[in-house]
């Protein structure tokens, strides 16, 4: 039998002024199940709290209702207090007499009536509370970083610095990401390679970092503190341990293709190291074009390799790792260059990234600016901003954020190479909000004399040697036609193709454009709604290097914070499945945003499968209750907010209403449940068709 204590707080005069607290306490004392009901001037004060503790001990209370302020204010306080004497904190509830009553209803009679109701509802709820225990989760103190761009590199280094092990998975043959492809970087114009390469080497040398290049995450299981990840190490066809990186194989290889690293501006072999500073600096065979794999010929590389490192038989390898936290730093891609049919697909129209390669000293032209069609230096060049960005027609209304800045940078780099050349920029707005950013753009305009034209370009076509650019200057209100030798498109930044598969694996939501979603845009920018998974860099939204690095540091500090704890302790407000009634429909699984619902097999003693049921992973469940509201057989409950608790509140809304258990409610005892629900199930089955038939006839 329930023994409930009610404690009504005056809150000085805050409550007592408009609510007759004495009357409320007296009323509460008469409610069935209440054994003690007291009022006090300040319940949260030390003597007030003592009152509660004494009553629990003296009256052997099974439940406590504190009728005071908002539970968002002091629930934690009171629960902590009662826990001190071994009373289950989740057997305590608060009735909100202050924020929801005395402060908002001036009429004393009405306020008192409402206060009585609120107390009554809580008494009824607490009668149905069950003792709950915090969920303790052990933590594997090893992190996984996916993506080896600047963001991933930074995050990995920071975590390793903090003393924990890191696994860095990169899908391409080398780490470095896009930053490795850049020439000089805004807003300082320092050389990208010079600042990036040392960090890459640091990654390679750090003993706490395990590097998997040419690898991809295949599966992710588990939850915060306890993830199991499967990594596919794609067959490199070169034994990294044996290879010395001498490069003889590459020299001998007869097969060529366009280099991805050079954004298609240069060529590479079938066996290749993507760029000279690659980490690891060991080649890989592109099996799609290698003659050995396509035509079973050649084998030159194997013949020439002094260490016998080439292995054509190598297979994809799978490794499983246990990690406690995951940082996703998979970066971005650019759209294809020729996305506007009205711009055509002339070879002299290139993307910003291709331009970077063309001007880079390590690029295919060794830094000499040559246009693709005839190798001449362009005497006039046109840059188009917002190509495919801020363009609902192309399906991307968002701003790519980095292109205003890199276009300004490109005009400078161009003018530094071709001193008398003319650089035109078509822009809509210049977005240069950052430290020293606008100054940088102004420098391009004022010192390097880039000609900025406000307007979009409608058409590009070739006329002999030249490309004709037909644009508008909206400040003049006139058309402009420019004869250009080369055109650079600031194409939109997009999420990497197929990244949604990884996001789904990680349980991270992604937006309309497949950028991964942070838990809160302002206050939790590096967390995701999947506990233990964090974001860094351009995978979340277009970002430049400073921002990517800042976010990587933030994500690393979140991981370090997590690893600093001995064990994770979580509130027990989680869902629970009544597996005897669960029909295994898994509707709950579909509504759970946290992928907390798993499929469990129920087997008999002989090990034969009886049925599949839902099971809640307490590590993942965040306690939203969507599943409980969805289950059609009422087989899943949210602890602390069970149907029975809520129905009892509804039930006692009006005085004098007969107290009956609502239909469809799950009785406490699972054994009983089975019989009942089977019967109702049968009834339903019989009744349904008959009903349907009737309706049609009428």
């Amino acid at each position, binding site marked *: 039998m329930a023994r409930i204590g009610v404690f009504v707080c005056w809150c000085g005069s805050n409550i007592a002024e408009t609510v007759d607290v004495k009357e409320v306490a007296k009323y509460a004392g008469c409610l069935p199940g209440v054994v003690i009901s007291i009022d006090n001037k300040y319940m949260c004060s030390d003597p007030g709290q003592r009152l509660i503790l004494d009553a629990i001990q003296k009256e052997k209370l099974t439940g406590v209702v504190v009728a005071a302020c908002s539970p968002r204010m002091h629930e934690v306080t009171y629960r902590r207090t009662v826990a001190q004497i071994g009373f289950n904190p989740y057997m305590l509830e608060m009735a909100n007499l202050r924020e929801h009553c005395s402060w908002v209803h001036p009429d004393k009679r009405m306020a008192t009536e409402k206060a009585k109701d609120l107390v009554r509802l809580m008494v009824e709820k607490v009668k149905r509370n069950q003792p709950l225990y915090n969920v303790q989760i052990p933590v594997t103190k090893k992190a996984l970083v996916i993506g080896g761009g600047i963001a991933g590199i930074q995050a990995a280094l920071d975590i390793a610095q903090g003393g924990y092990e890191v696994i860095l998975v990169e899908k391409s043959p080398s780490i470095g990401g896009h930053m490795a492809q850049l020439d000089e970087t805004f807003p300082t114009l320092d050389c990208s390679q010079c600042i990036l390469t040392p960090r890459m080497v640091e990654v390679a040398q750090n003993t706490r970092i395990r590097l998997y290049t040419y690898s991809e995450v295949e599966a992710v299981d588990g939850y915060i503190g306890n993830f199991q990840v499967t990594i596919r190490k794609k067959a490199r066809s070169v034994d990294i341990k044996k290879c010395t990186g001498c490069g003889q194989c590459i020299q001998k290889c007869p097969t060529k293709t366009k280099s991805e690293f050079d954004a298609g501006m240069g060529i590479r072999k079938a066996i290749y190291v993507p760029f000279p500073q690659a980490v690891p600096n060991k080649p890989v065979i592109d099996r799609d074009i290698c003659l050995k794999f396509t035509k079973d010929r050649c084998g030159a590389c194997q013949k020439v390799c002094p260490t016998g490192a080439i292995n054509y038989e190598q297979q994809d390898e799978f490794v499983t790792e246990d990690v406690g936290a995951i940082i996703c730093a998979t970066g971005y891609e650019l759209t294809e260059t020729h996305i506007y049919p009205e711009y055509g697909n002339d070879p002299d129209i290139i993307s910003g990234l291709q331009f970077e390669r063309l001007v880079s000293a390590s690029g295919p032209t060794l830094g000499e600016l040559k246009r693709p069609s005839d190798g001449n230096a362009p005497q006039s060049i046109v840059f188009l901003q917002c190509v495919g960005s801020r363009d609902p027609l192309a399906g991307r209304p968002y701003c790519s954020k980095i292109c205003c800045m890199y276009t300004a940078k490109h005009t400078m780099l161009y003018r530094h190479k071709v001193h008398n050349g003319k650089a035109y920029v078509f822009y809509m707005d210049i977005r240069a909000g950052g430290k020293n950013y606008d100054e940088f753009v102004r420098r391009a305009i004022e010192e390097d004399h880039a000609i900025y034209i406000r307007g979009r370009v409608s058409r590009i076509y070739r006329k002999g040697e030249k490309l004709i650019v037909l644009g508008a200057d909206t400040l003049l209100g006139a058309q402009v036609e420019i004869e250009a030798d080369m055109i650079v498109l600031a194409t939109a930044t997009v999420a990497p193709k197929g990244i949604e598969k990884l996001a789904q694996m990680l349980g991270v939501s992604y937006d309309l454009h497949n950028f991964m979603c942070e838990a809160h845009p302002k206050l939790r920018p590096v967390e995701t709604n999947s506990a233990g998974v964090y974001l860094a860099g351009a995978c979340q939204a277009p970002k430049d290097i400073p921002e990517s690095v800042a976010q990587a540091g933030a994500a690393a500090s979140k991981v370090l914070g997590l690893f600093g704890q001995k064990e994770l302790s979580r509130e027990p407000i989680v869902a629970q499945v009544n597996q005897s009634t669960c029909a295994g429909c898994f509707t709950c699984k579909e509504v759970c945003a946290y992928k907390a619902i798993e499929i469990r097999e129920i087997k008999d003693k002989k090990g034969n499968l009886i049925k599949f049921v839902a099971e809640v992973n307490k590590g993942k469940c965040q306690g939203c209750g969507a599943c409980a509201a969805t289950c059609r057989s009422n087989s899943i409950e949210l602890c602390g907010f069970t149907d029975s608790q809520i129905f009892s509140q509804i039930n006692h*809304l009006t005085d004098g209403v007969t107290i009956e258990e609502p239909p469809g409610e799950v009785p406490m005892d699972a054994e009983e449940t089975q019989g009942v629900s089977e019967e109702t199930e049968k009834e339903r089955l019989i009744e349904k068709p008959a009903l349907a038939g009737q309706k049609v006839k009428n």
Partner: protein
Amino acid sequence: MKKIKDKPQESEDLLLEKDRLWQPRIVAFLCNWCSYAGADLAGTSRIKYNPQIRIIRVPCSGRVNPLFILRAFIDGADGVLVSGCHPGDCHYSTGNYFARRKFALLKRLIEFCGMDERRIHFSWVSAAEGSKWSQVVNDVVNAVYQAGPFTGFDLPVFSKETEIETPADLCKQGPERFAYSIDLMSRTGKK
């Protein structure tokens, strides 16, 4: 709805008289993170509103089972309000979308049962919208007051002459109407 039509026009005096006799009883299901906090803020800001509302706290509007609402009416409520975070702001990322879909369906059902639609309300109130909360409460109480005491469900009776709307019928009424029903189906159905 039938009830509105049947309701006789009442004079000012009568309304005043009724005012003394009857007060609507309204249950509000508020999500813990936004609307409940918004109601708290109304309190800390001392914004006054109608006391005829009884709040039941739930973690998320997605926790609200439509049965809670029906049950509330059976158990003597005259009106129900469900309030959660603004779309896109859900603490649990998608809970309020599920809530929205469920309620669109429930609303149809409740209208079908002949219930005055002024009895059932949904709103988005954020933790920063104390004054909006008080406004919502007053609006809801007013609407329910207009609807009068809840006396029970009033299922429509289909005679042979009454035509039942099927999707095919909707088609006949022109594409907009049909589009609407499809839209409704898709909104209430699964993602």
